[in-house]
């Protein structure tokens, strides 16, 4: 009992105790690996119409998820769909964090008018439904990968910003910050070296929880036909196509639906688990 244990050790132990989070992490890892090594585990390219004669055939030992209406191997499309979904999720979350951290830090550190402006900005983003703005922006830029990342990060930074702001506000008056100020440290230096490192757990949580939101937005937009343009496979777009064939060819609707549900669920549960592990006081919010 003499050995001192780091906070990281306790966070890891809390995380390991959360079975749902651990299982979700493993599932997400497998999906991530499948997305990265997609060319190695799939028989053809995602847009290759190699099986036109067998179009719409049901799952078999050769084609695990069947063939789609245009003669493409459906398993291949689902796996490449994971690439689209995950890359949009991760890059949107990254940009959301990059916007949210400085704004949250400035609002929390300076307070006053800076805080007022940031809070009005947040209010603006909370009353406009992201989907409507996304549809408008999508029409403006003709959709595509980067538009979706832009929209998802524009509406994803709010959560990160609020978390960082609260953390910075709480730490601003701590002794070590006062000490740094007394030693002549500039506000920028204090924010960079002391306040942001101390906000690392809300930042991680905000990052992970922004991923499923971006993935859902991508799927919704692709479902409406203004997301990732075909033939790049996206689960939302595949669900939309699958709807037309649902009565006779169930596989075209079921597999993308399951893929999207499992991935979003796993990411959310992983995020919840990380939040509970990194900051037990936030539990259940």
């Amino acid at each position, binding site marked *: 009992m003499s050995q001192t244990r780091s906070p990281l050790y306790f966070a890891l132990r809390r995380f390991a105790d959360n079975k749902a989070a651990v299982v979700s992490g493993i599932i997400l890892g497998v999906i991530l690996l499948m997305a990265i090594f997609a060319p190695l585990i799939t028989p053809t390219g995602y847009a290759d119409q190699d099986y036109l004669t067998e179009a719409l055939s049901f799952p078999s030992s050769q084609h695990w998820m069947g063939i789609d209406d245009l003669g493409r191997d459906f398993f291949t499309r689902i796996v490449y769909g994971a690439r689209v979904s995950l890359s949009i999720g991760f890059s949107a979350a990254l940009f959301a964090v990059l916007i949210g951290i400085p704004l949250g830090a400035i609002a929390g550190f300076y307070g006053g008018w800076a805080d007022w402006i940031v809070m009005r900005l947040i209010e603006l983003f909370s009353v406009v439904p992201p989907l409507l703005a996304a549809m408008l922006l999508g029409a*403006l830029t003709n959709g595509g990968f980067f538009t979706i990342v832009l929209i998802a990060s524009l509406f994803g930074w709010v959560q990160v910003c609020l978390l960082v702001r609260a953390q910075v506000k709480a730490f601003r008056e701590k002794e070590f910050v006062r000490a740094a100020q007394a030693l002549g440290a500039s506000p920028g230096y204090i924010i960079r070296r002391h306040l942001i490192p101390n906000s690392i757990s809300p930042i991680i949580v905000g990052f992970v929880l922004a991923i499923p939101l971006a993935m859902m937005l991508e799927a919704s937009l692709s479902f409406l036909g203004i997301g990732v343009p075909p033939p790049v496979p996206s689960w939302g777009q595949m669900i939309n196509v699958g709807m037309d064939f649902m*009565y006779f060819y169930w596989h075209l609707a079921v597999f993308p639906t399951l893929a999207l549900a499992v991935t*979003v669920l796993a990411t959310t549960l992983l995020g919840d688990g990380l939040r509970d592990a990194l900051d037990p006081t936030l539990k259940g919010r």
Partner: protein
Amino acid sequence: MLRYIIGRLLSILLTFFVVSLIVFLMMHSVPGGPFDGNDMPVSDAVKAKLNASLGLDKPLYEQYLRYMWGVLHFDFGVPFQSPGETVTELLARAWPPSLILGGSGVLIGAPLGILMGMAAALRRNTWFDYLVSAVSTLGLTIPVFVISMMLIMVFSVWLNWLPAGGWEKPYSWILPITAYAAVPMATYARYTRSAMLDVMTKPFVTVLRAKGLSERRIIFQHVLRNAALPLVTVFLPMFIGTATGSIFVEAMFRVPGLGAYFVSSIELRDYPLEMSLILMITMMFCVAYLISDIVYALLNPRIRFGGKS
């Protein structure tokens, strides 16, 4: 309190103005106009005449001011895609189906979610608690069109119990209402559970137990009342959120409601309708948040008298 409300109203006006300006500019930056569609090609001269008749040849600021002046008089213009009626008339026609479905979804989903959350909190860490957590996480993380899809697959395609869509017969409303109810149910189950657990660990509950009050009275008279506070605030915004949810649910179940107009107004460059829809939703969200905050303050004396909660 009055000063607070006036301040908030001013802030809503500011938000409304900024949103209207941004949306207007974005809307007009989208290339193409309402008469550029390929299904009914018209000559350039005709196009110019049509644009002029709708005032689309005027400079943008004039169009904006003209439109906003109309909005201030509750005149939202005439939708380009159905010029036989005003935007107000179109809304009066298309909104009721969305309201009926979305409203019943919330009114069924919210109480169900509260009951589930309560039961889960009272039976903490049992299989029922885990079930509620699983259901509520699923409801919050799966997009509503995926939920609709699953409902159609199971109840229409496989079991053939209910029609996959339509609006005329009331029993075809069952599936869309279920799809609408998923999100409120999940939200309320989750909030109620955590709010109840939060209150149940407070010292005053221990005092009530020590006083010899029955568990039933503690739960229903004291815990529930305190836990209800945060639940009140999410109700109105959630209700309005069904408006955007209608885009998907109505497309899936082929309901002739408001949802399709969100998409078509953007696709067809139907500026008056597009502007009206977005401004309306924005305004309703602003007002809903304001009302929620006021109700919260009225129900919670700790906030009303400026104390710390």
